[in-house]
């Protein structure tokens, strides 16, 4: 019988060159769910936002490790992006559109808003000094004819 779940993990350095690597790796992993081009673009943007946050804010542009774990179950894709950086003091404030702690770097403050807009679910777990974990979920193939959305 064909297995319905699949999992992958990657660990990489928090240099900005790896932002592109991370989103392409996740995009490539999700192709087994037979996504539309738009769904791939949505996931790439969301992953790019989460990884960029880890690079700039979590690790303050120092080089440490970023961890990504992806799980597929049925039509669902779950992505976890984790850093062991400085953490977020006020998560609610950080998730406000246009809020940024680094305006001098031209950050738009739209990172979490984009993750929320492009994924179906978003949860952020963080505390100062203990790093940040972003969990995102997206159901793939929702808009396609002949697909039944699994009821959870």
């Amino acid at each position, binding site marked *: 019988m064909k297995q319905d779940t699949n999992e992958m993990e990657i660990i990489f350095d928090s240099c*900005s*060159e790896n*932002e*592109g690597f991370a*989103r392409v790796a996740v995009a490539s992993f999700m192709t087994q769910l037979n996504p539309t081009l*738009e769904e791939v*673009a949505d996931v*790439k*943007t969301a992953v*790019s*936002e989460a990884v*960029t946050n880890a*690079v*700039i804010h979590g690790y303050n542009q120092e080089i440490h490790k970023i961890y990504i774990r992806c799980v597929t179950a049925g039509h669902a894709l779950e992505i976890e992006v984790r850093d062991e950086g400085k953490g977020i003091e006020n998560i609610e404030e950080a998730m406000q*559109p*246009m809020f940024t702690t680094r305006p001098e*770097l*031209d*950050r*738009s*403050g*739209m*990172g979490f*808003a*984009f993750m929320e*807009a492009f994924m179906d679910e978003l949860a952020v777990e963080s505390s100062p000094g203990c790093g940040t974990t972003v969990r995102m979920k997206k159901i793939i193939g929702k808009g396609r004819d002949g697909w039944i959305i699994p009821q959870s």
Partner: protein
Amino acid sequence: MKYQIEENCLTIFLPKELDHHQTEEIRREADRQIERNHVKYVIFDFGETSFMDSSGIGVMMGRYRKLSLTGGEVWAANLNDRMKKILKMSGAAKIIRIYEEERQ
């Protein structure tokens, strides 16, 4: 990345993927050009670009803040549908002007 100056107008030909890694260089080079050439208009040319995240929005808004002090403008040209969607979603389309080619 290519930068082109014509009088007081700077055109930036953006890379295929516009993320934080790329915007760092664009930010530095664009500001250098703006100051040296008294640039009033910046055009971000998306002709080759198929990916952008909020870093791209940030670099455009940052140039807008800089130029608006002297009455300048920021334009975005040759956007595909995805890039247009991201620009509109972010709210940046309210102040960044989108250049639409006139169709005959």
